[in-house]
């Protein structure tokens, strides 16, 4: 039974390659990269184990615990568990639960992350190659750890599935997941700055890590990784205790998975409670014209579709990121806040038709004029984005204490917002690329779309940059050469150039749309 599951998994992976050569190439490149990373990890562990076994033990425990934690938690937030072998699909075969579980568990290792984890864990055990007994213990620990990763991730996702299946919960969690993701970079920057400042006490940091590893090695996440180190130190009691913790965790995870799966198999997935909204919302407040209707629909989606509201959730974090990267309020980098935000907001509608997905058929069959479609999508961004941009411009100038630069910053920001909205209106009627489908996680990038996405986004970015030069240059002169007078020129040029680009972009996009709306629809249909 286990062999059958593994073979099924391999067949499914193999069939995925037959769909396109590019996908195969992507997989090979990804696999080579993964092998490289694994190789580096293993070599690093062996070198460290040879020179400083104590530090090696600390690093292995901490890194390993992070890996287990990642396996358990990440599927809940972002990607969902690999559903290639969804237990629901085996319901009708009447497979005994015990064999089903064993098959799924082993097949769970047969995946790119599974193989990478297994190879790293086994390879890292060779940090103790000088002490054969410790090596043996570490290998046992590695096997237990990999089992813990796979079984634990199945246990958490299966047990929490009823929660995860509720659309509302999923959406809230996905939007919330943007926050830590955006803050990861700045957090590292901050940590680096803290360590970089003043005399670094290497001893103190090392001691802290060792103490931390000592604690983590007792937790279910770290226990299997501490086996090798314990045996190396000759602490047999400690090794035994860690093995017991790890095996007990594995047993508990197995039982939880078993129970949850038994329940899930007789409870078909439901979508949870239905969401409701009173009244017509924006539809009763915006003008009753095709343009107004498209604008009302777009505004509704900005608030209600996680693929859009995720980017709204990011906006308040931009100042935080810039503050950290710039290293404080005094920095000139913080003055980039408003233009940067304006660019992101304008850029966010550059794949609008792809985001509609096949619902776009309604626009085509209704014969919506291109003018209405383009302006309707652009106006909500311009109005809401304009307010945010002006607010951010004022805030950044106030924080930097440079009120004299307000016209320059405002000019660049408004210019960038109008320009990037105009460019997006044009490109979204011409350069389509697959995006996460309605209802999918915003993190779920469609396979095989990397090239089209890259081309479309690069073209849009270069266009915005080139068209922004007329006000970007005086803006930079005003700030860098400290010539606030040039700021007024920037404001004027920014407003005029931005408005022209916007109108031309929308017109060009509308013409393209009128000529080729059915072709646009067929493109999105091909993404289905």
């Amino acid at each position, binding site marked *: 039974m286990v062999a059958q599951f593994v073979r099924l998994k391999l067949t499914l992976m193999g069939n995925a390659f037959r769909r396109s050569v590019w996908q195969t190439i992507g997989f090979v490149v990804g696999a080579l990269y993964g092998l490289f990373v694994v190789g580096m990890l293993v070599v690093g562990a062996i070198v460290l184990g040879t020179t400083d076994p104590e530090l090696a033990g600390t690093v292995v425990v901490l890194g390993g615990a992070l890996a287990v934690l990642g396996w358990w938690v990440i599927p809940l937030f972002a990607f969902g568990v690999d559903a290639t072998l969804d237990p629901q699909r085996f319901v009708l075969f009447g497979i005994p639960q015990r064999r089903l579980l064993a098959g799924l568990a082993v097949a769970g290792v047969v995946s790119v992350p599974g193989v990478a984890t297994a190879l790293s864990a086994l390879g890292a055990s060779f940090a103790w190659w000088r002490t054969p007994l410790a090596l043996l213990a570490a290998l046992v620990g590695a096997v237990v750890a990999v089992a813990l990763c796979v079984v634990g991730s199945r246990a958490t996702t299966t047990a929490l599935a009823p929660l995860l299946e509720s659309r509302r919960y999923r959406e809230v969690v996905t939007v919330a997941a943007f926050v830590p993701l955006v803050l990861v970079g700045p957090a590292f920057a901050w940590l680096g700055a803290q360590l970089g400042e003043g005399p670094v006490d290497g001893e103190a940091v090392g001691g802290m890590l060792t103490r931390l590893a000592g604690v983590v090695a007792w937790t279910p996440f770290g226990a299997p990784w501490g086996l090798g180190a314990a045996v190396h130190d000759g602490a047999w009691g400690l090794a035994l205790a860690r093995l017991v913790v790890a095996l007990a965790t594995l047993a508990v995870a197995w039982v939880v998975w078993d129970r949850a799966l038994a329940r899930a198999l007789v409870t078909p997935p439901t979508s949870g409670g239905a969401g409701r909204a009173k009244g*017509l919302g924006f539809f009763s407040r915006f003008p009753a014209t095709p343009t107004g209707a498209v604008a009302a629909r777009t505004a509704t989606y900005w608030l209600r579709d996680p693929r859009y509201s995720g980017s709204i959730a990011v906006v308040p974090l931009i100042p935080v990121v810039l503050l950290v990267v710039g290293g404080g309020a005094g920095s000139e980098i913080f003055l980039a806040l408003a233009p940067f935000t304006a660019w992101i907001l304008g850029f966010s509608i550059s794949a609008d038709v792809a985001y509609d997905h096949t619902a776009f058929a309604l626009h085509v069959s209704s014969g919506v004029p291109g003018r209405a479609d383009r302006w309707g999508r652009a106006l909500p961004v311009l109005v809401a984005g304009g307010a945010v941009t002006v607010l951010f411009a004022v805030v950044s100038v106030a924080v930097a204490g440079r009120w004299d630069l307000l016209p320059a910053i405002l000019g660049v920001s408004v210019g960038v917002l109008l320009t990037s909205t105009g460019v997006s209106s044009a490109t979204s009627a011409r350069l389509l690329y697959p995006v996460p489908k309605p209802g999918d996680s915003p993190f779920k990038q469609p396979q095989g779309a990397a090239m089209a996405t890259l081309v479309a986004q690069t073209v849009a970015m270069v266009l915005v940059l080139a068209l922004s030069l007329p006000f970007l240059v005086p803006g930079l002169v005003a700030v860098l050469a400290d010539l606030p007078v040039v700021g007024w020129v920037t404001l004027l040029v920014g407003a005029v150039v931005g408005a022209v680009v916007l109108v031309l972009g929308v017109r060009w996009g509308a013409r393209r749309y009128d000529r080729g709306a059915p072709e646009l629809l067929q493109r999105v249909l091909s993404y289905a």
Partner: protein
Amino acid sequence: MVDPVPVPAPVPSGAPAPDPTLRPATAPGPQPGPPAPPNPAAALSLRGLWKRFGQKIAVAGIDLDVPAGSFYGLVGPNGAGKTTTLSMATGLLRPDAGTAHVHGTDLWADPAAGKRQLGVLPDGVRLFDRLTGAQLVTYAGLLRGMDRDTVAERTAELLAALDLAKDATTFVVDYSAGMTKKIALATALIHAPRTLVLDEPFEAVDPVSAANIRDILAGYVASGGTVVVSSHVMDLVQRMCDHVAVVAGGHVLAAGTVDEVRGDQSLEDRFVELVGGRQSTEGLAWLRSS
């Protein structure tokens, strides 16, 4: 408008007389003689529609006249080209060759005028499902350029007629498959089109709702509208439609009034006879339980 040209005379709706649009089964390949010009009196007049996707020719020269005021069924096996034909007839898919006229307007020459007269229920497309049912129907009405009061009034009536009034404030994403079909139908009806083109309208719809929808469509035809439906269910087409076309392999095999096409057989038997492909039920002996 185009002057009446000597074409097969338009069929008065519901006329029992032999239908001149009935053609014998056309063999694949070029047709003998010049193609007939489009019929300006027909609700839909397709001439030489042709579409190919890569190697596969999905629709290979379809000529079809849907008389105004008819209830027209389009039947065919899976992959016959029904959806492709209807997409080309409603402005969703540009044909490689051929024309589609809607009440005398060349749809692909003047899409705006053509689409104004059409209400479309495409198959296999999503809806803007983050809107509530009422919002979605309102959206469809406003997109058609209707005024707010008319849209509000018709939205309420449509939701009531389709038994969706109590779900008007529910997001469409949380609708069942049948409710989704019904709300999509409402978006196709809101602007009171002269011709309705519905691709698989009864799929996943429960029997009671299906009966309600049939009543609505029958009333719409009785008041002079034209309905084109595609379906797999022969029985339904035989009972509901007055005209039918059998499509397979991208060709029209037979078209005309239901009685003409089926002769003295049931529509289902005639369909199987035209399309072929029935397997003899030899073998599978082990499946017999006794």
